[in-house]
């Protein structure tokens, strides 16, 4: 199976932006991890993940014997690049400051990226052959809104700062699992009724 059809330019730009922000976070981490900036990096990496399912030649590709599910599975591996950057960044941050909740952040990153890919898969199922721009914009705007407005603590912490890491981890782990199932469901062949 091939990853050639992935929009590597989009994935690379998002990954590079995320990597640059993470490097800054690691370099300037003081007493604790600068979680606001770490989440900015995650937004950039999420944008990279949002483009992995874009398929401009969908009209022809859908008639190929390689099923959409196989193609989606292959393309989804491209999200390993932004996820690898996230993992390296979080681990480096963990080395820099012991206050970094490494495990929780790793699950958070995996969950966010999984949601991005699942959103793209759903839009693709709905007929939008290049869902990346929309997913990146909507998810990015939603994440920025949560970061900036910092919802009241009574709600489940999506991006916790001080506490709430256990609840957040449970949330993102559940979302990641649900996202994987959604990707599979949304990647069924459009011909099959």
């Amino acid at each position, binding site marked *: 199976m091939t990853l050639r059809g992935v929009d590597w330019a989009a994935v690379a730009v998002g990954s590079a932006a995320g990597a640059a922000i993470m490097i800054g976070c690691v370099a300037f981490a003081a007493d604790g991890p600068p979680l606001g900036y770490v989440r900015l990096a995650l937004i*950039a990496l999420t944008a990279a993940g949002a483009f992995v399912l874009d398929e401009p030649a969908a009209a022809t590709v859908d008639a190929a014997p390689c099923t959409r599910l196989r193609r989606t599975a292959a393309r989804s591996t491209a999200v390993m690049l932004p996820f690898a950057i996230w993992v390296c960044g979080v681990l480096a941050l963990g080395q820099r400051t012991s206050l970094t909740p490494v495990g929780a952040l790793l699950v958070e990153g995996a969950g966010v990226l999984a949601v991005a890919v699942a959103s793209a898969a759903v839009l693709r199922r709905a007929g939008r052959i290049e869902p990346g*721009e929309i997913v990146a914009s909507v998810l990015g705007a939603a994440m920025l809104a949560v970061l900036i*407005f910092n919802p009241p603590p009574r709600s489940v912490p999506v991006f916790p700062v001080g506490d709430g890491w256990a609840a957040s981890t449970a949330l993102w782990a559940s979302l990641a699992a649900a996202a994987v199932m959604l990707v599979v469901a949304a990647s069924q062949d459009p011909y099959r009724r």
Partner: protein
Amino acid sequence: MTTLADGAAPPTRMATLRPIAGLEARRYARHPLFLIGVAFLVIGSFTGGTAATGAPANPEQQVATILPAFFLGLLGVFVGHQLARSMAASTEAVEASPADGVIRTGALCLACLVPGAVALGWTACMSLVMALKAVPVSAAISSPDRGAMIAASVVYAVGGPLFGVLVGRWTRFPGAALVAALVLVAWTFLGTFGLLMPASRLGTLIHLNAPFTSWVSSDGPNAPLWLAGGSPWWYLSYIAALCGLAATAAMFHEAVGARRSRLSRVLAVLGVLAVASLLLAAAPDPTRLTL
């Protein structure tokens, strides 16, 4: 069919600009992301919210700028970008029309006044509500300064979309709108370092160079609130100059010949104005006043 060959004078540029600007304004007003932003702006007004910078002494005042800044300004980056890129598919047909790229971009920039108008209306309503509820305000903030701080929300609402138009005109890579939004947010976050520094003109300069700023902060979760130094009016001038720079730079992309030279001069003037406004904004006594 009437043609120019019939002897009628061709329409002036302004006459062409007006209907195109109207068209773009209607497109802006119908954009789903703008409508969602307006909805959340209204919802947020009722539910309130805490600014990321800390517990507000004057919540309405904090909310008064951050809500339109995000829901109209930051979301407007995506709207402005999308509208600017939306003609890309029919570029050849559009570019063969008499209305050149500068006019079309100018019309798009004028359309960015739509969120500004919404922000203005919303700000007026909020001010009325605050007056009716007799919300106590700190005497450390003079009325004119408070007015400038609140008026900035209108500029935020216009500036975000203009930045989106600028990015849409000058770049083509996927996800550019989100990167633009991230740049604005990161720039704003970096500006908060000025608030972390001891009170100084340098700290004020760092604080006020951001495209969005909060004037109230504290030294810790339970510490008393203080008003940051600087001039809200010159800051307002600074961010308005940034808006002008964004619009002019967007139009510059399409300009050729004499018009390009003219726009270069406008860019230079606006650049000087922005720098001067920023320096003047940071010039007043940096001493922080406890609220």
